């Protein structure tokens, strides 16, 4: 097991190296002078020359890469010319809303989709099943910003139950934080609920045909125990896999959702950075998201062993 984790951690290195090379080349392969790109439209030629020296752009490309990656490894992501701060500082400021949004979304998504998926499988062909399946088609096809604005219109503007936009730090006012988290997480979780409930339904349906489910019923267990203890645990692996893959979609979804709800998170930072061609920030964000994605999927792989004793690494 320890072996496996170490091996997987080692396997992360080539993945991240490839990502790093692509990120590095992204800036170098942009048409024009990277220094000019970084400095922005209104820079003087002195400023550009200054940046060029700072970035070591006069060195050969391999040397540049080594310097750059060395910086990255030390957590030195450079300086954002647009925000006039170091990128590390920027990310530290912006990470909380995104993290909060991701966690709330996952809680919503898993908490809603797994039970309705199980119920839909148990009552296959019933009205409930058809409603769940119908919802999941809608959930897939309606874009996040449409759902977001609809929710704002109903719950914030018409009913006035929740604030329209904005963010309060969790440490400042917990209740205010929660109020402002509900609508964004709901918006972002719609797609996930659609996805996970479908997968849950499919994999529970498959398990329900297994012989050991019949054995469990022959023991005189109640339907609830049969479903939750015997069926769901056996159906867990595909569900976990989809949740893991979902983290990637979540990051993409955060960009839109944060814009709709005015959350000052990494998603919006990314949008702003892209619009202002703030390359150091873009690079850092991409690298960070890749690390998160790889690590989350490692955790998911490890969690398989908790659900299925036959899986041994």
């Amino acid at each position, binding site marked *: 097991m320890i072996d496996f984790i170490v*091996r997987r951690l080692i396997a992360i290195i080539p993945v991240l190296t490839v990502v790093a090379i692509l990120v590095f080349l992204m800036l170098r392969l942009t048409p024009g002078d990277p220094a000019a790109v970084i400095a922005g439209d209104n820079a003087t030629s002195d400023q550009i020359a200054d940046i060029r020296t700072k970035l070591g752009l006069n060195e050969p490309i391999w040397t540049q890469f080594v310097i750059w990656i060395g910086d990255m490894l030390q957590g030195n992501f450079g300086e954002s010319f647009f925000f006039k701060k170091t990128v590390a500082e920027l990310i530290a400021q912006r990470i909380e809303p995104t993290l909060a949004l991701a966690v709330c979304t996952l809680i919503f998504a898993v908490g809603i989709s797994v039970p309705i998926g199980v119920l839909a499988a148990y009552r296959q062909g019933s009205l409930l099943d058809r409603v769940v399946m119908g919802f999941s088609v809608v959930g897939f096809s309606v874009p996040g910003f449409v759902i977001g604005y609809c929710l704002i219109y109903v719950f914030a503007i018409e009913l006035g139950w929740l604030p329209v936009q904005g963010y309060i730090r969790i440490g400042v006012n917990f209740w205010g934080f929660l109020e402002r988290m509900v609508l964004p997480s709901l918006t972002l979780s719609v797609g996930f609920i659609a996805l996970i409930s479908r997968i849950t339904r499919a994999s529970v349906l498959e398990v329900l045909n297994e012989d050991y489910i*019949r054995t469990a019923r*022959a023991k*005189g267990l*109640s339907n609830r125990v049969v479903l939750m203890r*015997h069926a769901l645990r*056996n159906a867990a692996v595909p569900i976990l896999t989809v949740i893991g893959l979902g983290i990637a979609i979540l990051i993409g979804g955060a960009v839109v959702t944060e814009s709709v709800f005015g959350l000052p998170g990494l998603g919006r930072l990314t949008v702003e950075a892209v619009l202002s061609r703030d390359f150091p920030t873009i690079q850092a964000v991409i690298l960070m998201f890749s690390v998160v994605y790889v690590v989350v999927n490692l955790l998911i792989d490890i969690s398989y062993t908790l659900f299925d004793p036959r899986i041994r690494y």
Partner: protein
Amino acid sequence: MSIETKRPVLEVRNLSVSLPSGADRVHAVEKVSFTVSPGEIVCLVGESGSGKSVIAFTVMGLLAKALKPTSGEILLEGENILAADESRLRELRCTRMSMIFQEPMTALNPVMTCGEQIDEVLNTHTKLDAAARKAKIIAILARVKLPEPERIYGSYPHQLSGGQRQRIMIAMALVLDPVLLIADEPTTALDVTTQAEILKLIAELQDGQGTGVLFITHDFGVVAEIAHRVAVLRWGELVEMGPTEKILSRPEHSYTKMLISSVPSIHPVHRDVRKDGPTVLRTEKLGKTYSGSGFFQKARVVKAAVDVDLDIRRGETLGIVGESGSGKSTVARCIARLIDPSEGKIFLGDTEIATMKASKLRPHRRRVQIVFQDPYRSMNPRITIGESIIEGPMNFGLKRDEALARARKLMETVRLDPNSLDRYPHQFSGGQRQRICIARALAMEPELLIADEAVSALDVSVQKQVLELLDEIRVRLNLAVLFITHDLRVAAQICDYVAVMSKGRVVEYGSAEQVFGSPKDDYTKALFAAAPGRNWEFGKFAA
């Protein structure tokens, strides 16, 4: 006190169960009545589709939703189960009536330990505390003769063998001393020696506790071994019921007579002495070693076949018998070069093919053909049987119309209608499909026909017909046949020579009469001793 005077634990009166509309008949079970007394083992015997499992599931209240009991009563110690609601049924399950199933490999939840799974029964139905429950579970594990009950308690099903898993199922079923045990083909998926042990265990346990047993099987050998009384079912109707001895030796109904006459005898038929035809196949020290080695895993070496020497002459049938994992299918697959042997030589006529390159091997492929075990899965469901049959010959250069003409002739040979070549596999029954598979193999005009458990999935009456067909074809075409089977009775009837395999090695090899008549190897002896109903000579009755 005799069995008859006690009140029955189970009384099935006039039971009918309807099939959903669109099925091939209206009732899965029609007007069936029988009783099971305390301490009695009643066997329900029948071929597939006879409704025997439906009866078992109706008693447990576990019928699929599409099936509905339409009339009759099922009395468990006088209480009508058909009138009981779901929660009452749950109370009765495992406390008064229990069930064990055919497939021990899949009947246990793979992600829970065996102990936990038995504990669920006690937790649901009793008020015992954790320590008392555990003590009771350890005791029942010991009673079903599992070694090291403490270790087994914490084991997952995949860590146990098939026989051990079936013991867990039995322990789970009997832990609360139910009055009725329903056993649905509990030994069908097990090897013959394991089967004998499980049958003995069931008989011992039920005798000790006076449990009534409803035992479902298709195997008359098992019936002869274990049943007190027998009920014979056909198409959902009970055709005959009586004490085992009477039904087996003096059956009255023509269907029962036909079934019992179809059971192959365990005594080999006398065959002529060795023919002097040319040797079609010879293996020399054939071996196959599997080594699973991953990048970071320890290499695991499994010797599936070791030093196998066989030979078959034209017009002869050589049988390889053995239990699962004995290597018999591995040998067959090596000979057909479906897998590559790791050691030794295979001579097909004069050609050595064990180490031949794939490109050179191609022309020789035609000479060896296989009929597989499961006729439901060994044909492509999306192409017609005609296309399946002519695909091979056309691949070897025969023109389409010639190949079709050959296919039509072969359909007659296997006694099917040549005009049905444009139908799809699902339009045929299991026995018919196996005939089609034989026709497909013969279409290549092979020198050696390998039948890998080719009759194991078939009902006994169909099995008999397919066996007769294979033997007839062997004689007519003067074919060499390699017949792989786990069923000693089948081997006794069709083989000229028999090789007994165990753990990858041939432990005994000789003429069928000699091997069956006076086995020398200890393993062979044990295998024969375990064959169910070996002491019973099934008569041949005129229907």
